[in-house]
């Protein structure tokens, strides 16, 4: 909680300059300058409010976790867990992924690998690693290709655990993940627990920016949402579920391109809470080129939109299901409204900066935002296990990275509404886990 004080100087600076800015606007100038200055002010207020809400609830959740922390459960209190690994053409990474799963520190668990009709040697590599001892086992199955959701349902049918951990075959989970996540399920209202995802291949600017985005954007958002037990996406690389809860809602569904988001929303609809464990980590390989990154974000954007719109009937269920309704509005804001508003505001600010004399004001705002971004970066790094050098990338993040991502989101949203056909589009992995 004290780490949150890192943000205080930047926030004081923002309030001071915001107040000065308002005084300057009211002093009067031509209408276009006024409109430009007002746009900067409103846009800044929106950015800061969004930031502050996330940081506030993230800090409150960390505090709540400290307060409700119970002594570590004994070996006998920990339930049997099934670790499910759906895979498709993962021969380059499956061996290392399974080796990492075999070193998990947990009394009793099983690993179930489902090869979803790979055309490479994934099945043979995994099959060669099968074993079965008293407390742990690894079983490998192969089925015709039908998608990730189908492979996960196939694995659930064959699992014996009252909880299951779904992981991606191209990821590596931290050895204490099961121990950290399983205790959340003592509370019968918890249906799933999300873990943190870190980028493992930080070898160029794109992957470093994604590593920063994962902790500052995705993990921070999850931490904030977890205060209400309303995490909207249990990520594919690491998510633990109550098997009975997932079975009761019919398992994974394959009618969207974001089966993880869809399942999470259906669990919330069924009345379950979704929590988040910040220290349960999955190391995953991020796309290394811009075009592969756009490919991933294209699928995420359209998948999340499909999942949100699938539940659109609940948007107005403010009384009968207020949590789901609130979450759906939030998701539509983040997926559609916020990227579009960001682009429009940026374009208008650029235009007014060029044609009026408010260029200097723009510099002051940019400097203040950069200070805020750096402070938030330091805060996020300090509460996670990530490297401090990522803070350096906050400078590029706002001016460069987020604009490209927002443009991709807006264009993908437009394609979704025009019903442009899409395919899963598996990313090519370099096998760096």
């Amino acid at each position, binding site marked *: 909680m004290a780490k949150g004080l890192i943000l205080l100087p930047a926030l004081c600076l923002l309030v001071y300059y915001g107040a000065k800015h308002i005084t300057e606007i009211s002093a009067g100038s031509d209408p276009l300058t006024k409109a430009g200055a007002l746009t900067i002010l409103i846009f800044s207020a929106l950015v800061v409010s969004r930031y502050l809400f996330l940081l506030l609830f993230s800090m409150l959740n960390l505090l709540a976790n400290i307060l409700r922390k119970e002594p570590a459960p004994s070996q006998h209190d920990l339930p049997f867990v099934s670790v499910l690994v759906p895979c498709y053409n993962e021969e380059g990474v499956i061996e290392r992924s399974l080796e990492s799963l075999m070193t998990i520190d947990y009394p009793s668990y099983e690993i179930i690998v489902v090869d979803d009709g790979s055309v490479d040697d994934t099945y043979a590599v995994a099959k060669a690693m099968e074993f079965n001892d008293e407390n742990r086992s690894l079983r490998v199955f192969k089925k015709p290709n039908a998608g990730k959701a189908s492979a996960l349902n196939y694995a659930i049918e064959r699992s014996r655990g009252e909880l299951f951990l779904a992981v991606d075959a191209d990821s590596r989970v931290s050895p204490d993940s099961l121990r950290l996540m399983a205790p959340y399920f003592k509370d019968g209202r918890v249906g799933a627990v999300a873990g943190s995802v870190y980028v493992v291949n930080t070898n160029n600017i794109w992957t470093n920016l994604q590593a920063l985005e994962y902790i500052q954007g995705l993990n921070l958002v999850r931490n904030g949402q977890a205060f209400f037990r309303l995490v909207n996406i249990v990520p594919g690389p690491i998510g633990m579920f109550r098997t009975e809860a997932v079975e009761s809602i019919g398992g994974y569904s394959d009618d969207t391109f974001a089966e993880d988001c869809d399942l999470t929303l259906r669990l919330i609809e069924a009345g379950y809470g979704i929590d988040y464990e910040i220290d349960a980590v999955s190391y995953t390989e991020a796309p290394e080129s*811009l075009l592969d990154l*756009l490919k991933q974000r294209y699928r995420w954007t359209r998948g999340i939109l499909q999942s949100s719109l699938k539940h659109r009937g609940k948007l107005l269920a403010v009384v009968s299901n207020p949590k789901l309704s609130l979450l759906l509005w939030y998701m539509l804001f983040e997926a559609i409204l916020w990227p579009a508003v960001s*682009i429009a505001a*940026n374009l208008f600010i*650029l235009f007014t900066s060029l044609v009026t004399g408010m*260029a200097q004001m723009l*510099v002051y705002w940019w400097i203040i935002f950069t200070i805020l971004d750096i402070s938030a970066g330091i805060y996020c790094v300090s509460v996670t296990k990530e490297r401090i050098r990522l803070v350096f990338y906050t400078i590029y993040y706002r001016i*460069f990275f987020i604009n*490209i991502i927002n443009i991709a989101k807006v264009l993908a949203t437009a394609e979704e509404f025009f019903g442009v056909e899409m395919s899963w*589009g598996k990313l090519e992995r370099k096998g760096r886990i």
Partner: protein
Amino acid sequence: MSTDQLLTLMAYLIVAITAATMIFGVVAYFLYKIREKRRAKTGSSGAENAKEIEKKGTGTPQNMRYFVRRRITL
């Protein structure tokens, strides 16, 4: 150079970078779409396609040249 001039220069720099990034974002998106269309025509992604060709021995030299060219240009 006075402070005012420096601030103005910085402002134009910020404007130029943001504008360039936005144009770059749109161009990159359409490049990605073109790449996916070309991949769809050949059946699957480049790496998968190449592996399949290599494994089954069903690929023609023309297919392989196409794959290699795409890998280099994109």
